[in-house]
């Protein structure tokens, strides 16, 4: 008998900075690329989503009020923490997708670099997306971009870590808070990402991570009246219509994206506020 | 001179006076308070500050569950904060609910603490929502029971809805009840006034109406005695002295829990109103848990190592 028995990881949800199990008590099997049992992931319910939205909403004003510098530094720290765990994440990716060790490490590096890229946008995008507008009249007129609020994410299936990071980073950098649903078949990278986030000074509730079935939860994301925006890049194209329709009730801003490194992904979940003020004494 | 000759007691006069006060820039006030909070008070100045802070504490218990036993223990603690060390000064006053004043006064007298005043909260503390008759009676009862200081609350509802003259007249009436039997502290409840402009206006309103002290809070609402709020109030008493040659006291209350907090307050006084205010007759700190932290820090300064809560009495 060689080797010691490894302590298997329990994969839980990440809500408001804590790691609860799903309130439904349900789980589902995650199998490796070659069919072996990997873990019982939580099968999150609509009530978990409801709790996550409450947490995200409570955290949002504080996160948006933090200075852009502070948000940038925190997202950079998420990159620092992820870099430190490269091997752990690469292993998980290989197990789930069958990618080689080299390919998986490459995916982790790309995810780290993408976090660094987005971190650098926090204190620059307003200088580009905002403007002083030359109106006709003695008025100072300026437009400022502002965070939208609480944004849901249906994370993509391919590249379980990189795709996840590409979805959440642009949402957080401007001051939104998020609830992300990990890819149903390969959720482990997203769930482990919670460990990185929990050690990065990101305030509780800013990012919440659920694992479960897209088919069960996506409609609840879409209909929730306290979710302001939704990234459905991870949803199959034939589902987009139904989800968009469900989101109309509170005029959710719903988008899906093709590019991963794109400031447009930040702007898609921002509002623009224009202010007038007379000039004179 | 009535109302220091600055207002004539009419609504118009009061309104105009308050309106002409310069505004307070919130960001600037916050920055000044934050800069003063970086003062590093060490060694001899820290020792002096700790003892001064102790002598300025209004040791307070204001709970629905207060009993004679609780109040008596508080009074003993107020007079001899550290029973093992008689060098520790006694606090500035004991602050209790009006129906506990008699018990406090009696106990203090019985332990030889005749010079330690009892302050009573009155006027339907903390909300201030009661009839004028009740508020006047509240005050009279406290004074008859032995209170030498009255901490009254202003009608914040009236203030926020712009009925300044009502707030003014209430203070004038309570001041009259106090006469020369008790000094009057006026609680502005700055957490409910919210803006620094309001804090400045309310400070002047209270001083014009006859306050001996202006006090930040009831301690039942947060935020309470934040440094910028205390800064604005210290500026008000400083400027009021220039106008009238009368010094009004300031009492922050609520949220001052550690020695560090207390020392920051003393620095604010020192560099805003000035050293004349560094005396219990012009500056008090409304607190309860603070006293033990001051004692722990005092121990560390004299012993040279960190103390433990086991070595200070809980009451």
């Amino acid at each position: 008998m060689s080797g010691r028995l490894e302590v298997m990881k329990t994969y839980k949800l990440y809500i408001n900075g804590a790691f609860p199990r799903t309130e439904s008590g349900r789980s589902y099997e995650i199998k490796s690329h070659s069919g072996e049992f990997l873990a019982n992931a939580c099968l999150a319910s609509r009530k978990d989503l409801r709790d996550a939205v409450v947490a995200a909403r409570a955290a949002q004003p504080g996160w948006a009020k933090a200075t852009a510098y502070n948000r940038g530094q925190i997202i950079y720290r998420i990159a620092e923490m992820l870099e430190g765990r490269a091997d752990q994440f690469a292993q998980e990716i290989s197990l789930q997708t069958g990618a080689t060790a080299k390919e998986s490490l490459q995916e982790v590096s790309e995810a780290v670099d993408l976090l660094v890229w987005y971190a650098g946008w926090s204190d620059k995008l307003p200088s580009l997306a905002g403007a002083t507008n030359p109106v006709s009249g003695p008025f100072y007129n300026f437009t400022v971009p502002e965070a939208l609020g609480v944004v849901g994410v249906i994370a993509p299936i391919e590249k379980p870590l990189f795709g996840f990071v590409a979805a959440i980073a642009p949402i957080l950098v401007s001051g939104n808070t998020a609830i992300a649903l990990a890819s149903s078949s390969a959720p482990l990278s997203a769930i482990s990402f919670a460990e990185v986030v929990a050690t990065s000074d990101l305030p509780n509730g800013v990012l919440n991570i659920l694992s479960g079935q897209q088919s069960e939860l996506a409609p609840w994301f879409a209909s929730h009246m306290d979710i302001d925006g939704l990234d459905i890049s991870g949803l199959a194209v034939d589902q987009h219509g139904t989800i968009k329709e469900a989101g109309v009730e509170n005029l959710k801003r719903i988008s899906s994206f093709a590019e991963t490194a794109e400031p447009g992904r930040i702007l898609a979940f921002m509002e623009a506020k224009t202010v007038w003020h007379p000039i004179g004494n | 001179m009535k109302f220091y000759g600055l207002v004539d007691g009419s609504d118009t006069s009061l309104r105009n006076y308050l309106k002409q006060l310069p505004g307070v820039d919130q960001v600037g006030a916050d920055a000044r308070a934050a800069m003063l909070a970086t003062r590093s008070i060490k060694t001899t100045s820290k020792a002096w500050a700790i003892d001064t802070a102790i002598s300025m504490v209004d040791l307070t218990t204001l709970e629905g569950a207060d009993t004679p036993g609780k109040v008596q223990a508080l009074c003993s603690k107020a007079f001899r904060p550290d029973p093992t060390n008689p060098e520790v000064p006694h606090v500035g006053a004991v602050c209790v609910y009006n129906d506990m004043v008699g018990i406090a006064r009696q106990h203090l007298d019985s332990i030889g603490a005749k010079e330690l005043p009892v302050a009573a909260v009155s006027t339907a503390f903390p909300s201030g929502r009661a009839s004028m008759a009740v508020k006047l009676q509240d005050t009279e009862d406290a004074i008859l029971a032995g209170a030498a200081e009255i901490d009254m609350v202003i009608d914040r509802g009236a203030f926020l809805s712009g009925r300044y003259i009502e707030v003014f007249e209430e203070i004038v009436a309570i001041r009259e009840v106090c006469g020369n039997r008790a000094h009057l502290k006026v609680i502005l409840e700055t957490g409910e006034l919210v803006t620094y402009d309001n804090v400045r206006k309310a400070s002047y309103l209270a001083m014009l109406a006859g306050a001996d002290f202006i006090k930040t809070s009831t301690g039942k609402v947060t935020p309470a005695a934040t440094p910028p709020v205390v800064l604005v109030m210290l500026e008000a008493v400083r400027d009021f002295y220039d106008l009238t040659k009368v010094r009004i006291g300031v009492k922050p209350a609520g949220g001052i829990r550690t020695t560090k907090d207390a020392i920051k307050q003393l620095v604010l006084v020192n560099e805003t109103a000035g050293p004349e205010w560094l005396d219990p007759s012009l500056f008090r700190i409304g607190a309860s848990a603070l006293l033990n932290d001051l004692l722990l820090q005092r121990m560390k300064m004299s012993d040279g190592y960190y103390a433990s809560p086991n070595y200070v009495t809980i009451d």
Partner: protein
Amino acid sequence: MNFEYAAAPESRSVVKIDPVYGHFINGKWVTGTSHFNSINPATEEVLSSIALGTSADVDAAVKAARNAFDKSWSKLSGRERGKYLFRIARIMQERAREFAVLETLDNGKPIRESRDVDVPLSAAHFFYHAGWADKLEFAGVGTTTTPHGVVGQIIPWNFPLLMLAWKVAPALATGNTVVLKPAETTSLTALLFAQVCQQAGLPEGVVNIVTGDGSTGAAIVNHPGIDKIAFTGSTDVGKLIARAVSATNKSLTLELGGKGANIVFGDAAIDEAVEGIVNGIFFNQGHVCCAGSRLILQENIADEVLEKLKRRMEKIRVGDPLDKNTDLGAINSAEQLAKIHELTAAGDTEGAARWSPNCALPDKGFWFAPTIFTGVTQAHRIAREEIFGPVLSVLTFRTPNEAIEKANNTPFGLSAGIWSEKGSNILWATQQLRAGVIWANTFNKFDPASPFGGYKESGWGREGGRHGLSAYLKGSAK
């Protein structure tokens, strides 16, 4: 009852100063051929012996920078360049206390300021610019995002580390390599910065630091292998440099002197305005190009403001810069102190009324008490010339237009301040003022995202924000 603050000195033990320093060229320390002393202006103690850079040293540095540009730096993606800058920012944060104490020892500024302003802003500057390195195509500074190549940077003594950050961060972010000369009296934090570059693994030759005096600076300005010069310092030297490069293809940005007008209207928030006046002229001992050195006070509140100002000035603590409670530190050099004396003497002669609070000044070192002159008119030397010390000239005005006229009546155009509670008035004044940085109801606020630079003889170009990037990119200008 007086509340005396006992001495609260910050410990020097966090800092290790070598007795002799060389230059930092091509990632290595290079011994200098001759040296000069660098002293602590608060005590006149000799801190270290600094190398005097010769033309040969400058030449070696330029070659190293060119080589690094050609072989390594220009080959890196913006993303990779950015990651070096993020590392540098983080290491500066890690070594923050060390940098702050060293800056105070070398410059004379209070530890509270180096700790709370200089060092955090310097790290922030690197952090901010790190994020631009891979986003230049979005910066809106033009379609050409090609760096110049090798840039020569000459910085002043008033904010040694911060000025280094303002220069090096954007230069590197845009893909240039650097030869930097710190000021003669303040080289130490630049030399410590070289250690940070090494810890960050920055490729050799990307940043080169050559210490020295005016002759070293001239060697940099005149070196044919340098594509662009960036200079912060006096207007006189700025003009010398501009003349020297005018017949060359070198690109040039300048950040020069100022005589900032701080305008207080009658409707200002008075207490905060007084704080702003004090901050405007006494922060950093008044050694600030954008200092609010002319107070332009509306007559209807002049007496009240002056009385409050004097009372506030009584509370300024002058003394040991390493003491955490010190507000006003030492004047940086005997030379600068002599200049301040000369100009304030002129103030007396020309009939202005001088006032300072009583403050005991230390025996050793270079010190000047915070001072105001009232009854100043535009014709006085102390209203026209930059004193660069803790001296405020006070003028008055009756109408808003008069305030603007007086404020603009100067060849300088770096900064201005406006104090008023009326929004439209503030916006009107900002529209009229000919100054590159205008602070309304605040003063001396800096941020890497906020462009800084002057109109008129206060300089060419901006630093910080996306506007500051264009200085370091070739662009389409010939």
